[in-house]
């Protein structure tokens, strides 16, 4: 991606990132083949795609859970592969935190909520005085909408939504700048999803956070994200601003993904046309001129150079026609 936006500060830059598992062995899995994108400070970047598309792997590599196979990941201008030693890693993780998918599996069942949230503070040597630390835990619980009486309870005593709030409180404890939410709401009920999403939105405003929001629920992603990246089989296929993506989905895969979301509207569903995507479509033989190309400002498509004009025309038509998937 070119440095097209000067006024926005990039917090994350990913260039040609690759991640293979069992590299060089017979059972090698190329989870991520070629992914490049930027995340700007203060925005929510949504990452969508089906299971196996490499979206979670991307999130994990970004927070340095495991080494990457190729490419470069820069966080605040620094190459994260150069981070070494406990001290540097602690600093890095203090700045970047993660909220996990399964609210039960990601909380230690044998310690109380106070220790779960306070543990993060202890590890980072913040609030060394235990009384002050407890105060801070109460503050955090209240910030995520839990009462401080809950501090002495165990995870099993909470509902899924409450557990996810504990997970969020833990991530917020060290006052990070950047939070990766990996399918953070997928396991929750509809009414609770809305609560958690609204909470994440409020917290972002209050604490100047930047989010990477990984999910497969496209309607929720649209609602929370400023920009969205669509991944499929280890490649980033389309990156655009959220509104633009839903108005003018250009890549056939994005189109099929959007057309597959069931909308809560029977009349819509009766008249809806679904498009199917043939993965052969982006199996280019000659990869030299293939890559993420900018079709319109801030709108990127993975395609061959010769296809750029085609996509530009398609975009013009879609913008003229107005919204398709409402």
């Amino acid at each position: 991606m070119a440095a097209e936006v000067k006024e926005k500060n990039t917090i994350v830059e990913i260039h040609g990132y690759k991640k293979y598992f069992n590299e060089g062995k017979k059972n090698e899995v190329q989870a991520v083949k070629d992914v490049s994108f930027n995340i700007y400070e203060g925005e929510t970047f949504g990452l969508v795609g089906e299971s196996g598309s490499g979206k979670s792997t991307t999130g994990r590599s970004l927070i340095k859970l495991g080494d990457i196979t190729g490419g470069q990941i820069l966080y605040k201008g620094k190459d994260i592969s150069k981070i070494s030693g406990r001290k540097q890693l602690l600093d890095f993780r203090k700045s970047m935190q993660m909220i996990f998918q399964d609210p039960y599996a990601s909380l230690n069942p044998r310690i109380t909520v106070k220790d779960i949230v306070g543990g993060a503070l202890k590890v980072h040597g913040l609030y060394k005085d235990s009384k002050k630390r407890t105060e801070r835990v109460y503050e955090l619980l209240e910030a995520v909408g839990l009462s401080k009486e809950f501090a002495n309870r165990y995870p099993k005593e909470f509902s899924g939504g409450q557990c996810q709030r504990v997970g969020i409180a833990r991530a917020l404890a060290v006052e990070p700048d950047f939070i990766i939410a990996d399918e953070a709401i997928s396991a929750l009920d509809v009414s609770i999803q809305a609560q958690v999403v609204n909470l994440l939105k409020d917290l972002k405003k209050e604490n100047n956070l930047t989010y990477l929001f990984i999910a497969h629920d496209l309607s929720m992603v649209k609602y929370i994200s400023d920009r969205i990246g669509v991944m499929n089989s280890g490649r980033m296929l389309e990156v655009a601003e959220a509104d633009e993506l839903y108005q003018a989905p250009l890549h056939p895969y994005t189109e099929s993904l959007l057309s597959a979301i069931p909308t809560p509207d029977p009349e819509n569903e009766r008249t809806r046309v679904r498009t199917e995507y043939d993965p052969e479509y982006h199996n280019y033989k000659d990869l030299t001129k293939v890559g993420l190309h900018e079709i319109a400002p801030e709108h990127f498509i993975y395609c061959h150079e010769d296809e750029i004009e085609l996509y530009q025309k398609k975009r013009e038509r879609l913008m003229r026609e107005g919204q398709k998937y409402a």
Partner: protein
Amino acid sequence: MDNTNVLEVKDLAISFKTFEGKVQAVRGVNFELKKGETLAIVGESGSGKSVSTKAVNRLLPKKNSIIESGQILYEDKDLLTISDKEMQSIRGNDIAMIFQDPMTSLNPTMQVWRQIAEPIIAHQNVPAEKAKDKAIELMKLVGIKNPEQTHKHYPHQFSGGMRQRVMIAISLACEPKILIADEPTTALDVTIQAQILNLMNDLKHKMETSIIFITHDLGVVAQMADRVAVMYAGQIVEIGTADEIFYNPMHPYTWGLLASMPTLDIHQTDLYNIPGSPPNLLHPPKGDAFAPRNDYALAIDFEQEPEMFKVTDTHYAKTWLLHPDAPDVTPPAEVIRRKAKYEALFTSKKISSQVGGEAIGSRG
């Protein structure tokens, strides 16, 4: 779709024994299933939707579940009182089930054709060789590619979507009259989900099966359902045709559910959320169970449980707001938008019957 009932559930109440006491999971559920229709049951986890339908197939654990009251009528028989042996001849034959997780509900050590053929052999007394041909035919029907080879595969050799197709093939093996699908697509990706839902709709039309579709995804409901029942805290709080529920909802809980779903409309700015969490059914609250979370709760909601008020012949809702003496309230903006869409659809004659907005009386 004709109007005969294939299944009637009357006043069903189910509790579970736990260390802390009795959990009243289902508290008086009434519904009927018509021939060839899809009835969707929606609700949050713990609302009793799975428990009610498991009772239909008598799949609840005998050890700790108690049927407190009720009848489940299928072909003039009460499924709750017939013998285990009689139930066995119905389960999987007349009433089949599709479960949520295709990985844990298939046998990992058994070739898939054997699993598909199992109900055929058990119920129809067909020799294995013939059942195998039928199984391969079924695999073709549900869209599994190359079944002549893949019928010998084990579940782990299939993807999630293909495994769910195997599950559907098993459930269809005996051409059941009733198919109970318990969150059949929740574990799948949207694109695969769309394929499976299309498949189920096609098969329904081909085989005239009645489907009970359990889900918490209102988008899926809109795509599948002829009628919708909304469950909360072990009770049906609103039931009606899909159009009535989506365009003219009456119960504040249904309002909340619809308003808390993000739409793909690019102009949406804020998302409504229902405050709090569902009640503990160890001690169900007095009055309307939804009252503590309800922005529209009236004083009476905390005292007395509302009855099912009739809106139209097909539409009922359990809320005091439908009582003639209830004050007028303004529903969330999203619900008003939906009602307007309904009016517009009606005037353009796309929908045949109009939904009445007034409470006509109560069914008591």
